[in-house]
């Protein structure tokens, strides 16, 4: 299966097609809309399900085997803002605080992209380490902290409340609801193990792919609504939002191999690096770097990188991993 076949297979999956349908709904100004509690409910379900399953897998693999790749993942998250910041600042001529904000978004991760990737791997029968959810859990925060520090250093003049801002960002990045749910469910899963899994499998595992498809319909609407802002971000950020994920994806795959992951696991680490945060990072950055322009970072991550990854980026990461591992 070459790269184009892989992409085509992904594009014809229910999850991706429903995502596209959502984008069409938003663009054609249909009044289709998921009520907020439905969005919240689906998010809770997906995070709890993926966390629980990951936790059961961590318990089975043993914390020892998870540790090295997890630390690699964290390092990767902290590293990405360091190389993307100068690109944005000097390549894109963006302000220091905007560069720091965007760098934080791209170092952090998108849980939905990760979930879609596990789904995709399953559908092409590519095995992977189920405990990879742990990487998702540890990769959300480091980049946000690095990004906030970068932003604060760059705007030191007004920097008297730096400490407070950093604390706010740490609190948001570590105690925010999505990270809490994910880590909490991981721990619950690890404590329960297989016997617990048997009880909740018909709810958390069996219907999972269908729920994801429905959720991506909503995410298509959410992303599609932002497409109108594309002209505000300019050609540089547009290109950034596509090229950087590919580079980060390749980087993640390589580091995943170094850390001893299987082909599937390295693909997932690649996808995590490639993905950009559009929930946790915006919230934390809004509070700690309030002078950054949220339209830039959010539009790039939500309207460019997220759709790119869901459709093309994920199979691309697998193709890269296949090349690296062959």
């Amino acid at each position, binding site marked *: 299966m070459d790269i184009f076949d892989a992409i085509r297979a992904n594009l014809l999956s229910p999850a991706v097609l429903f995502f596209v349908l959502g984008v069409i709904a938003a663009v054609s100004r249909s009044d289709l*809309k998921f009520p*907020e509690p439905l*969005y*919240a409910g689906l998010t809770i379900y997906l995070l709890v399900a993926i966390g629980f399953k990951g936790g059961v897998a961590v318990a089975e693999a043993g914390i020892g085997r998870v540790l090295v790749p997890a630390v690699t993942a964290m390092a990767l998250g902290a590293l990405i803002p360091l190389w993307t910041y100068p690109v944005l600042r000097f390549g894109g001529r963006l302000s220091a605080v905007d560069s720091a904000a965007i760098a934080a978004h791209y170092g952090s991760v998108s849980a939905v992209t990760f979930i879609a990737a596990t789904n995709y791997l399953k559908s092409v029968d590519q095995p992977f380490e189920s405990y990879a959810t742990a990487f998702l859990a540890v990769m959300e925060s480091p980049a946000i902290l690095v990004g906030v520090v970068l932003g604060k250093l760059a705007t030191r003049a007004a920097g008297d409340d730096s400490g407070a801002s950093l604390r706010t960002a740490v609190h948001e990045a570590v105690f925010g609801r999505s990270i809490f749910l994910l880590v909490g469910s991981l721990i619950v899963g690890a404590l329960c193990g297989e016997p617990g899994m048997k009880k909740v499998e018909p709810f958390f595992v069996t219907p999972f792919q269908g729920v994801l498809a429905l959720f991506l319909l909503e995410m298509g*609407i*959410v992303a599609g609504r932002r497409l109108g802002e594309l002209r505000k971000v300019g050609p540089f950020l547009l290109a950034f939002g596509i090229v950087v994920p590919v580079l980060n994806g390749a980087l993640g795959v390589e580091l995943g191999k170094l850390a001893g992951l299987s082909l599937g696991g390295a693909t997932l680490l690649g996808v995590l690096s490639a993905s950009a945060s559009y*929930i946790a990072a915006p*919230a934390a950055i809004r509070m700690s770097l*309030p002078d950054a322009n949220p339209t830039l970072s959010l539009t790039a991550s939500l309207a460019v990188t997220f759709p790119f990854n869901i459709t093309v980026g994920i199979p691309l990461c697998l193709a890269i991993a296949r090349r690296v591992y062959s």
Partner: protein
Amino acid sequence: MNTHPMKLVTVVCEAHAKEAVLRTIREVGAHGYTLFPVEGDGSQGLRTADIPEFTNLQIEVILKPEAAALLLERLGQEHFPRYAMVAFESDVRVLRPGKF
């Protein structure tokens, strides 16, 4: 029963501003607030209230006239430049002035 004049300050803002606005409300001395999610349109574009992180909130506070003036002033200085936000004041009458 006698009614007593008081001010109602209403804030409509993006969800990310919630903590910051509530902190300011506490700091000017209000003893309570009421809050609910709303949709809205304004200079910073449509907010359709479909995902909790991107929604709008309407926050209502009853407080003494001096506190209301202070709240509006601080909102205008600290929050207006940073967040999508509207705030306005109106006159109300309450029964238990000591409560606010």
